[in-house]
Every structure is written in structure tokens, then in C-alpha cells.
């Protein structure tokens, strides 16, 4: 059944908006509701993964590439970004990341938002005081605060550097299937056993997150009064203990299942990656940028 068909067969109440907001008899104020906060974090996490996986299916420039050369190229570019010392080349590389996003058919508003959404919170908070704190030639004074030329340079370089490296990392994540990113780690001689562990972890993260979501929903639906701090912390510790117990048991069962399917401790990773013309172009581009920066 196609996804569209299954959507039509859904009962009407499931399609109405507002599903997912819980009606409870809880007296909890917004302030004390750690349960709702975790639930909305989980929803946000799942929504992000969903939106991230949309762009992998587009037939764009980066999607058509061998994941190994893509990973190597992105790494060269991020290292290049990390060694640059002036504003202009950083700006060119940021523009390059936007061009790559366009060439990969990623909606530009989405891409820029996704990158800059993180910047004001983390880098911005750090960069703004440095406008005033870095000593140098004053160019603007406001009451007791003085903005220096060096301060502006520092803040610009810092924000631009973080934004450009985040852009390249996001490009890699948006245009590559998660299992391909992990398999591409073979380029760095990461043992195949470790890659198997990484991909199993990725799958079980979702299982444990769903378990965690169920726990929170069930607590929320049987809550009628505000939790005290101690109750809340005790509950969380108990749930973490339970998730540990559950994952420990599960790992035993998974092991048995692996043994019964013939697992003997040897791992071979199937990869059907093929280097094409575009890969050589990409590698020489990123390596070229890297060498140019080193040489200058």
C-alpha cells in the first residue's frame, strides 16, 4: 500500500489536528513540567530525523556521489575552514556550501535556517561579548562599552568559521543515508566490527527513545498533581535504571538471535560504492582548496 492510500484509510479523528497534545487532569504548571519538556524534545528529535531524510532522495549533486569521497571531501573542507585566518576565504567557503546546497536541490531557506538556527544560541552568545572584550582600536563607543576593530574581526571570524563548518557537516548529513555515512568510515580504516556496532546503536536508539516516550506519556496520563522535585528525580532515576535493565536483557536476546543466524564474530560490510567522474571532481576540488590554504 502506498503511503497516500494508507493516509486515506485512516479514521477521521486521527487526521484532525491537535493529536499529540495530551489532555490531562494535571495541575502542573508549565514551569514544573519536565515530562512535557522531554516529550516535546522527543517529538522534535523524531521530526528532525524525518525532515533530514527527505533530501536524501533528491537527485542532486551531492546525493549522486560515492559516500566515501563525499565524507573525505567534507572533512578536507572542514579542516580547511579550521585553519583559515582571515575573513574573506571563510566567506568564499560559506558561499561554496550554499552553492552545493542549491546544486543538491536542498531548499535553501531550510538549509540556511537549519545552520543559523544553532549559531545565535551557541556561537552568538560567545561572539557578542568579544566585540567589547577584545582590546584594540576603538571604533564605536556606547556608554561604558567600546567596540574595537579587533573585536569585530574576532567575532566575525568566529561566527563565520562555526557557521561554515556546521554547513558542510549538515550538507553531509542531509544528502547521505545514515548507513552509508557509517560504511564510508571504512576509508579511515575504522574496523568493520566498530561500524556494525555503530549501526546497531543507531537502530536501538530509536527503540529506546520510543520506550522512553511511552514511559513519559503513561506518567503524564496518570498525573493528577504536581510532582515534587524529589518525586520527579526519583522517577527519572528509576526509569533510567529500568531502561538500563531492559537494554541489558535485550542485548542478551539480540546476541542469541545473532548466534542462531550464524554470527561467528566476523563482520563483513557489504558496500557497493563506486567512484565516478563526479567523485574525482569533488575530491580534487576539496583537496585543491585544502592545499591552497596550506600553501598560502
Amino acid at each position, binding site marked *: 500500500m502506498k503511503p497516500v492510500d494508507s493516509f486515506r484509510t485512516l479514521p477521521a479523528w486521527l487526521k484532525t489536528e491537535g493529536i499529540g497534545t495530551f489532555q490531562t487532569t494535571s495541575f502542573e*504548571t508549565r514551569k*514544573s513540567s*519536565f515530562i512535557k519538556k522531554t516529550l516535546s*524534545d*522527543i517529538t522534535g*528529535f523524531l521530526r528532525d530525523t524525518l525532515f533530514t531524510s527527505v533530501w536524501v532522495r533528491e537527485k542532486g549533486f551531492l546525493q549522486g556521489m560515492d559516500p566515501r569521497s563525499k565524507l573525505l571531501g*567534507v*572533512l578536507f573542507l*572542514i*579542516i580547511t*575552514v*579550521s585553519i583559515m*585566518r*582571515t575573513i574573506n576565504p571563510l566567506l568564499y567557503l560559506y558561499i561554496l556550501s550554499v552553492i552545493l546546497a542549491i546544486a543538491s536541490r536542498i531548499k535553501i531557506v531550510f538549509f540556511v535556517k537549519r545552520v543559523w538556527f544553532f549559531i545565535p544560541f*551557541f556561537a552568538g552568545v*560567545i*561572539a557578542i561579548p*568579544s566585540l567589547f572584550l577584545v582590546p*584594540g582600536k576603538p571604533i564605536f563607543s556606547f556608554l561604558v562599552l567600546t567596540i574595537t576593530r*579587533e573585536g569585530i574581526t*574576532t567575532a566575525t*571570524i*568566529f561566527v563565520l*568559521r*562555526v557557521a*561554515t*563548518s*556546521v554547513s558542510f*557537516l549538515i550538507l553531509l548529513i542531509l544528502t547521505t543515508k545514515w548507513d552509508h*555515512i*557509517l560504511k564510508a568510515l571504512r576509508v579511515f580504516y575504522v574496523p568493520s*566490527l*566498530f561500524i*556494525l*556496532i555503530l549501526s*546497531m*546503536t543507531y537502530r*536501538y*536508539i530509536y527503540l*529506546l527513545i520510543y520506550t*522512553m516516550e511511552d514511559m513519559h506519556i503513561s506518567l503524564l496520563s496518570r498525573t493528577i498533581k504536581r*510532582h515534587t522535585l524529589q518525586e*520527579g*528525580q*526519583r522517577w*527519572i*532515576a*528509576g526509569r*533510567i535504571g*529500568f*531502561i538500563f*535493565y531492559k537494554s*541489558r536483557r*535485550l*542485548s542478551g536476546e*539480540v*546476541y542469541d538471535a*545473532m548466534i542462531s543466524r550464524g*554470527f*561467528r564474530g566476523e563482520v563483513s560490510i557489504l558496500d557497493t560504492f563506486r567512484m565516478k567522474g563526479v567523485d574525482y571532481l569533488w575530491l580534487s576540488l576539496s583537496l585543491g582548496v585544502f592545499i591552497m590554504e596550506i600553501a598560502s
Partner: protein
Amino acid sequence: MHIPDGYLGPQTYGAFYAIMIPIWYWASRKVKETLKSKQVPLLALGAAFSFVIMMFNVPAPGGSTGHAVGGAFIAIILGPWHALMSLTVALVIQSLLFGDGGITAIAANCFNMALVMPFTAYFIYWLIRGSADILSRRGLVAAFMAGYISLNIAALFTAIEFGIQPFIARGPNGEPLYCPYPLSITIPVMGFEHLAFFGWIEGGITALVLSSIAKIEPALIVKEVKLNKLWVFIGILILLTPLGLIAQGTSWGEWSGEELKRILGFIPEGLKNLENLWNTLLSGYNIPGWEGPLFQSLGYILSAIMGVVMVSGVIFMIGKLLSFWEEN
């Protein structure tokens, strides 16, 4: 505490890769030895568990919430080597698949959260708990202290990594290129939020989670402890410390009071006195090579050993006091 790309310069993140790659290799052999072929699903689920617990919002005083890293109780229930591998897998996935923490900073993040935090937590836990029962007051205090102290030590390392950036790399006009703040800002800021807020969450959760697991299935908590090997490991860490610092240009030992004033903005009063004392003590020994990097690092190792001995002594005394308190 996840450091993104662009905060650390190449000298720093490169040094952390150089430190972490042999440790990862060693840890994977260690885990292989102890867990045999069951390691694959065990590590995968341990890593998934480490990933998921960072998502819990823990209620904190004042109606706010915070997240726990979980490095302390993972180390206590799985053992430090297993914790190192599980947390590494979780951090690699966070960076590579979710963009949380930079690619270049993976080794630095693993150093802080997967190496420093679990090992110090494990060490502090068994030092305080000794042979006491897990649910005894001493056992619970041990768990709290393990979480509180190990998180703060990890935060201190992060603050140092940030704070040394302005001295390592400056642009053509002398402006800082990476994290722009010196140690005099990063250490108090990170120290304050972790000593006053996040440390309490981590410590409280560590103690509560351990007691809840002890009630569900006490056999799950690894009981045997070999402190001797840990001492060796900590010794290696002490020896490695100056190597990383020398690689970054001026080594820490070369900071005179004047340089410290430039770096910190002031000369700590105690240090000023100490410097005079040092000069008086050493003035008779006019060794020409004493200023060289070799002796500087020897001095650094010596002070690191002294620091560890002092801290362990204090923790050991706390443990003794607690057991004395318990018996009476």
C-alpha cells in the same frame, strides 16, 4: 558540553586525536578480552543507552530542568573501559548523524566525556565506597561524589581547551581566531555553572540510578575493582599532560608572573609569593638547563603527581570519615 567545529584550533583538536586513537585501540582490545563475542550487542545497547539518557530532562530546583551526561553511572555499572567505548560510539553518532558536536572535535569531546569523566568517576566511586554496601550511606555518597566531581573535572578540561585557544592562535593583527576567551573567563564561567547547577543534577542522578539498579538487579553492578591498574592509567595521563601542552607553543611551566598577568589579567597573590620562594630555593642550584622544556615538563609532572596525591588523599579521608560515621 559538546564542542562544535570551529571552537578549537587544529593544534588542539589534532593533539586530542593523537591522544585518543591509541586509547581507543587499547580500549577495544580490553573490551574484547573481557566480553568475548557478546561484545557487539552489549556495546551497541550500552551506546544507545548512553545516547538516550542524555535526552531526559531532569527537574532541578527553581522549576528549571537540566540534562545529565551519565558518564559516571555508566562507568560504575559497565566498568570504565566499556563506558569509554559506549560513550565514544554515542558521541560519534551524535556528531556524524545528528550534527551535535563537531567532526574535528570528536576526539576532544570523547576525551572530556568518554575518557576523563568515566575514569575519574569510577576511581572516586570505589575510593570512597571501599567495601561498603552499595545502598549504605557511604555507597550513596560515593555515587553522588563520583557524579559531581567527575562532571566538574570534565567541565574543567573543556574550559581549559577553550581558554588556551587565544594563546595558541592569533590572526595577523593579534586577534584571537578560535574560542576568543582566555582561561580567566572560561574556567570561572564553566566552573560556576557546573559547580552550582549541573554537578548537583549529575551527582543526584548518579546516586539515584545506582540505587534503583541495585534494587532491580544488584548483580548487574560490576563489583570487583582493581585500583592498581587504575593508578597506572592515571600515571600515564599525568605523563601525557605536559606533552600536549608543550606541543602548543609556550608550555605552561614557562609562564612567569608577568605572563600570567597578561593571560589572566592579574597575578594570583599566592603564586607571587610562591614564585619568590621558588626563586630563593632554586637560586643556589644554577642549573643551566633548568629552563629547557625537559625540565619544565618534569616540573609539570611533579606538580600533577602532587595534585593527584592531594586530591586522592582528601577523597580517601572523606571515605574513612564516612565509614567511621556509619559504624558509630
